[in-house]
């Protein structure tokens, strides 16, 4: 760092692209906003890896504090993390939230330049995962992670990594089925073609062979590809209710039996083409429906919030231990910024715990020795020692997730399942009526063919397709505007709501665009003194205040002293400057007016100057949003925070709106339950762990976050903070989507009625069925996609083009 100088030019940081502060660092003729960015650049340039900057401008991420990775030396933790290990090599996969551009791919795939023992690294960009192979004799797992951390790509290693489930195999099996169904469909079509155009004398010779080949292709389709429909139909019949799979299974069975009979008795072509085509399309619909986001997890629980290991103290020696192995009575060492993983008693040190994620309270709480500290708090100060009273899996926090009553008392029913019942009854009535009529006439051959034909023609295939296609089209519109819905069923829930409950902190307010306010007075000269002091600290608050001060020069500092969690002091230009929290002030000051504990208090030469405090900003467009929603929905606010913002909230919401403060997580959950008991369909918008219970209980839970990769509690949808103002449009589009499905159902019914007209007469020729089905399918799919586009445009959700 010897050649770094302080200059005055305005541009952006060469590494991370943030706006440069007035005082910036320069190295190699490049400007950097902070030491972190510069050190990454240095590492890369030393290793000849500056191509990183060639593929994209300012691809870097600002690096956070040095992590503690001692736990990665523990053999038990290593074996849980790595995928594979042999004599020389180990393979490990990490999730790296910072991956965002092609430069990241390049850099992470060239790790061998930094350390040749890491001989291969592969990125899966969409999943943000890197798979690293390394020689474990030359480099330890900890060193690998430290290399990643140094270049700004810290992997997220949470407890969930250890207990990860493999959800991929189900999807793969579906693809196998689609491939087989598609293969069979293609071949069956080929052999059915002569039939479509009328058989010449020559082709008549092959008719018998074609029919048998078709039957052969139908066997795997019916018994392998369509198997799920049979099992699901049987299961639902056992529970005495009818789902959409019931009529589908019946149709597949009827088609197969008819094809087999006509082939064996050689009386005309079977329905092999319809059968294979139907199964193929149904499976496609299923696949579209299953498509999910690789990079977003909706089912996160406490395990992804917790680290995988924590430092314990045993016989005066520090030892990292996996969270799951923490036992009652263990001594834990919690450093500044670390999370308390289990309910414990404070034994030593000054505990200031930021519980905002658990309770929603913005200010840190102080705990005295012997007091119980709940899991989920983050220590904001010097290292403390705790004694565990409950293992991590039984703490108060994890209890929020493990409550049994979530959603047990009401069942989500979608349009398809509710209509399937009537649909099936209608089909059976018509089919039996036609059969009965022909039997009464005395034509039993016609009766059989009329029965089968009605069942085939009245296929709810369109129902099974239009819903997934419409809803997944809506999903992709949503996700371009920063609204990530869990699955297509959830979109239907979104359309069917009447109450919206908001959390305050982090939901209506943003932690991102906080504003620095100063109470007190500072002369410009004094401001420079303060800035020079703060310049030396890496604490997030110091950096925020420094950014707000944006000094034009920095003085040298002497006698710098940082008391972790309390403040910093140092001598600037011969004057003693102190910046930090109130309780850390070097002198007792009576005149401190600030009611809050938070904020950065400033003292210069024994004189109290004032306090910088961080104001939470209301998200943009809150007022129009609330006004808009007020028209159609009951609104409510449940805040875990104190009522200091009551006036502001009252001015935005209708006077009749219920606004409750100091709500515990459990109270929030109970509030949602009591609303649901009154038959309300509730949408909950929240952000932190304190809303986790309410989000899960609500009919539609939305987690609001400023960074999609951050931790969010389990929910139905994740919304990026700046999309909140679009909420009414999102809801409207989901309603329009349901309308589209209903219209397409009407179109399909009209096709079916034409088919049924022929079918009841027992004159349905296989060719008609083979043509009718694809035509109605194509109509429906094109209708749904056009309608979705139209509605998206009308709701103003399509103005931003593709690519995000």
């Amino acid at each position, binding site marked *: 760092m010897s050649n770094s100088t302080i200059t005055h030019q305005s541009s952006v940081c060469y590494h991370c692209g943030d706006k440069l502060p007035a005082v910036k660092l320069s190295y190699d003729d490049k400007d950097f906003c902070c030491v972190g960015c510069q050190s990454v650049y240095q*590492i890369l340039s*030393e*290793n*000849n890896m500056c*191509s990183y900057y060639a*593929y994209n401008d300012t691809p870097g991420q600002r690096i956070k504090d040095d992590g503690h990775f001692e736990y990665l030396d523990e053999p038990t933790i290593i074996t849980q993390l790595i995928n594979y290990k042999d004599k020389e090599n180990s393979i490990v996969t990490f999730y790296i939230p910072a991956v965002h551009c*092609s430069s990241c*791919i*390049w850099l992470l*795939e060239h790790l*061998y*330049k*930094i*350390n*040749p023992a890491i001989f291969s690294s*592969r*990125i*899966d*960009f*969409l*999943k943000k995962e890197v798979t690293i192979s390394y020689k474990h004799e030359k480099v330890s797992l900890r*060193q690998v992670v430290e*290399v990643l951390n*140094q270049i700004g790509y810290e992997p997220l290693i949470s407890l969930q990594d250890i207990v990860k489930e493999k959800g991929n195999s189900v999807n*793969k099996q579906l*693809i*196998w089925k689609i*491939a*087989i169904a598609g*293969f069979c469909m*293609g*071949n069956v079509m*080929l052999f059915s073609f002569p039939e479509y155009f009328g058989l010449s004398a*020559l082709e008549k*010779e*092959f008719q018998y*062979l074609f029919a048998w*080949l078709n039957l052969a292709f139908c066997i795997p389709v019916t018994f392998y590809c369509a198997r799920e429909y049979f099992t699901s139909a049987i299961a639902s019949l056992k529970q005495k209710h009818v789902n959409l799979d019931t009529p589908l299974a019946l149709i597949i069975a009827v088609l197969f039996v008819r094809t087999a009979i006509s082939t064996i008795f050689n009386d005309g072509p079977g329905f092999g083409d319809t059968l294979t085509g139907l199964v193929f399309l149904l499976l496609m619909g299923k696949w579209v429906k299953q498509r999910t986001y690789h990079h977003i997890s909706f089912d996160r629980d406490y395990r992804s919030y917790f680290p995988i290991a924590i430092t314990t103290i045993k016989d005066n020696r520090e030892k990292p231990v996996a969270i799951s192995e923490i036992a009652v009575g263990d001594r834990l060492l919690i450093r500044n910024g670390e999370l308390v993983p289990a309910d414990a008693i404070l034994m030593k040190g000054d505990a200031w715990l930021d519980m905002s994620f658990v309770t929603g309270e913005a200010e840190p709480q102080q705990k005295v020795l012997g007091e119980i500290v709940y899991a989920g708090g983050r220590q904001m100060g010097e290292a403390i020692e705790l004694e565990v009273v409950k293992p991590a899996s039984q703490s108060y926090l994890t209890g929020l997730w493990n409550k049994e009553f979530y959603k047990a008392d009401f069942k989500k029913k979608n349009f398809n399942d509710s209509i399937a019942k009537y649909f099936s009854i209608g089909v059976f009535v018509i089919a039996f009526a036609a059969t009965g009529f022909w039997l009464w006439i005395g034509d039993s051959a016609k009766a059989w063919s009329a029965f089968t034909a009605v069942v085939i023609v009245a296929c709810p295939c369109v129902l099974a397709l239009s819903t997934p296609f419409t809803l997944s089209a809506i999903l992709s519109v949503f996700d371009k505007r920063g609204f990530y819905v869990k699955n297509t069923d959830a979109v239907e829930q979104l359309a069917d709501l009447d109450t919206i409950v908001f959390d305050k902190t982090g939901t209506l307010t943003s932690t991102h665009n906080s504003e620095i306010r100063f109470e007190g007075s500072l002369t410009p000269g004094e401001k420079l003194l303060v800035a020079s002091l703060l310049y030396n600290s890496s604490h997030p608050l110091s950096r925020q205040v420094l950014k707000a001060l944006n000094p034009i020069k920095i003085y040298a500092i002497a006698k710098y002293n940082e008391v972790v969690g309390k403040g910093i002091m140092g001598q600037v230009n011969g004057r003693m400057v102190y910046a930090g929290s109130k309780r850390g002030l070097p002198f007792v000051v009576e005149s401190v007016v600030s009611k809050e504990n938070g904020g950065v208090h400033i003292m210069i030469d024994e004189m109290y100057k004032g306090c910088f405090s961080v104001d939470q900003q209301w998200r943009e467009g809150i007022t129009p949003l609330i006004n808009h929603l007020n028209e159609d929905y009951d609104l409510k606010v449940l805040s875990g925070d104190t009522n200091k913002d009551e006036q502001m909230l009252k001015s935005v919401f209708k006077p009749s709106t219920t606004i409750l403060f100091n709500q515990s997580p459990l109270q929030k959950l109970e509030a949602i339950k009591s609303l649901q008991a009154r038959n309300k369909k509730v949408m909950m918008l929240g952000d932190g762990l304190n809303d986790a219970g309410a989000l899960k209980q609500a009919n539609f839970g939305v987690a609001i976050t400023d960074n999609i990769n951050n931790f969010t509690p389990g929910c139905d949808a994740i919304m990026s903070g700046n999309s909140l103002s679009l909420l009414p449009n999102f809801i409207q589009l989901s309603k329009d989507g349901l309308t589209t499905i209903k219209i397409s159902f009407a179109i399909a019914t009209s096709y079916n009625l034409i088919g049924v007209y022929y079918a009841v007469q027992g004159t349905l020729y296989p060719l008609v069925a083979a043509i009718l089905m694809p035509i109605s399918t194509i109509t429906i799919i094109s209708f749904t996609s056009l309608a979705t586009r139209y509605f998206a445009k009308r709701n103003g959700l399509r103005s931003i083009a593709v690519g995000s």
Partner: protein
Amino acid sequence: MNILYFLIGCSVLVALVFLGAFFWALKNGQHDDVYTPSVRILFDDEVKTSESDKDHISD
């Protein structure tokens, strides 16, 4: 026209080979990540500079 029987057999066989190839690719994980390879292929090869390109172990 008996040759048609043979040709039909061939066509089914060829189709089965392709189906098998697809399953092989699926099992091999070639469809797991359909995005990253499209970026990876655009990276230039390193230009060899005259100065020593020694690998550097940082700690």
